[in-house]
């Protein structure tokens, strides 16, 4: 048998083999497609059950029966349901959510997430951070804090967001620390997570006002203005007065204005004095209006004559937010009692204040209409 004969015999055999292989691939794909479609349908069928549990105001019979059904799912279906469940869990609070989080812990989701936090795959580490932040199990702070210094920047961002959802005070310390160093997390992400922690973050934020990194101090000052439930006024006032970085003083001034504590007014008035940097003076003048304390009126009235336009304009606008005394000061200045520059700023502000605005009717008006 020569080589040509061998070739002539082998070619049809090879063609047949290829045909069989192609058919096997097609059949396998069709089978897998049907299996996936069945799985998708099964998961879609379970969605109303998940929503039902999550929307419950209390753990009643309906919730318990829903949880039992989920607990009985085979491992394959559970794996298919799990991503959707994690997504839904992050959108609600309440007894249904807590019951589902418990069920997920029992089914090993948390243990797997802790393991995946050390995976070589960045995607798996991201998923692990997301799961831990959503379920909020004990020990999540430690795992997520380690992911905050991950070599992958996306993992660090996901971990920072997840820490914000934990609602544990210890998360604030880790988040603030992540603002500096070669693997720093963007300040925007950290700020958002600190704000989510709310007043729980206050002890760590107050401590961070003394950090050596001005970036950490700036974020701490700003977030204190958003989340403080009291007790941060003195520390912020000291920061406005004495922090070596102007940006930190500016953020602290804004925060004092938002908090509106009477004790902060003195520090803000001092920050408006001519020896200070212009941007700080302008922000402090505006913050006095945010605070809206009548004690600031004499200082603001004087500032309307300031040679720096932004300071003078902000002072006039702030007076309009300091109640009747502030408005009276504006009217006197507009009538010519103060400098001509002050009069112009006062008149411009009064024009804005008096411009017709659409107000919602009072309850009494509504009642009359009814």
């Amino acid at each position, binding site marked *: 048998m020569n080589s040509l004969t061998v070739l002539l015999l082998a070619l049809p055999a090879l063609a047949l083999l290829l045909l069989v292989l192609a058919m096997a691939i097609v059949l396998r794909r069709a089978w897998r497609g049907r299996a996936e479609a069945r799985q998708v349908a099964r998961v879609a069928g379970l969605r109303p059950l998940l929503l039902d549990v999550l929307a419950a105001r209390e753990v009643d019979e309906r919730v318990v029966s829903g949880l039992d059904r989920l607990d009985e799912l085979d491992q394959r279906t559970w794996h298919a349901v799990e991503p959707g469940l994690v997504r839904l869990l*992050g*959108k*609600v609070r309440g007894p249904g959510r807590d019951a589902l989080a418990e069920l997920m812990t029992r089914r090993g989701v948390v243990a797997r997430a802790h393991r995946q936090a050390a995976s070589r795959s960045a995607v798996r580490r991201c998923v692990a951070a997301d799961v831990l932040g959503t379920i909020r199990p004990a020990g999540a702070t430690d795992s997520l804090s380690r992911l905050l210094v991950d070599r992958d920047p996306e993992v660090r961002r996901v971990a920072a967001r997840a820490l914000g959802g934990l609602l544990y005070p210890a998360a604030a310390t880790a988040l603030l620390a992540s603002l500096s160093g070669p693997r720093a997390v963007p300040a925007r992400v950290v700020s958002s997570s600190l704000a989510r922690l709310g007043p729980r973050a206050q002890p760590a934020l107050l401590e961070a006002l003394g950090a050596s990194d001005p970036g950490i101090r700036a974020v701490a000052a700003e977030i204190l203005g958003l989340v403080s439930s009291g007790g941060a006024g003195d520390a912020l006032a000291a920061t406005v007065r004495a922090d070596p970085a102007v940006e930190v003083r500016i953020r602290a001034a804004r925060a004092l204005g938002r908090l509106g504590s009477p004790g902060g007014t003195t520090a803000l008035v001092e920050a408006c004095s001519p020896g200070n940097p212009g941007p700080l003076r302008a922000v402090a003048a505006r913050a006095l209006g945010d605070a809206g304390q009548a004690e600031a009126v004499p200082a603001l009235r004087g500032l309307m004559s300031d040679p720096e336009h932004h300071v003078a304009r902000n002072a006039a606008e702030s007076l309009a937010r300091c109640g009747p005394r502030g408005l009276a000061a504006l009217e006197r200045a507009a009538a010519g009692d103060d400098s001509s520059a002050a009069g112009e700023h006062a008149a411009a502000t009064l024009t804005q204040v008096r411009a017709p605005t659409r107000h*919602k009717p009072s309850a009494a008006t509504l009642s009359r209409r009814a």
Partner: protein
Amino acid sequence: MTRALVADDDQDIRDLVALVLSDEGFEVVVQPDGPSALRVFRDNPVDVVVLDLMMPGMSGLDVCRVLRRDPAGAYVPVVLLTSAARQIDARVAIAGADAAVAKPFAPSELADRVRAVLVEAAA
């Protein structure tokens, strides 16, 4: 039956809010964005509107402002769903909304807030 209009681009939130309000006895209409919510409202005004703050294109605040300019929507109670309730208090007031509920929301809190704004509007 009290009618509620819910607009949120997130289907999960839409379905959850609808379920919470249905359980409270509301008849609920859901829409995926601001413009369609406004169309539905103009065709058939509702008793209370629940809007997501951060919808793409037309935000909840934008929808609220448009509603307030419409005679039919000027006084309808509006609840905004937001991820940062404390920070948007002032903006909510400026846009004319009646209340804000922070996401992730608790079903009981949402239901109570919606009931409260309806009671206030009727007072």
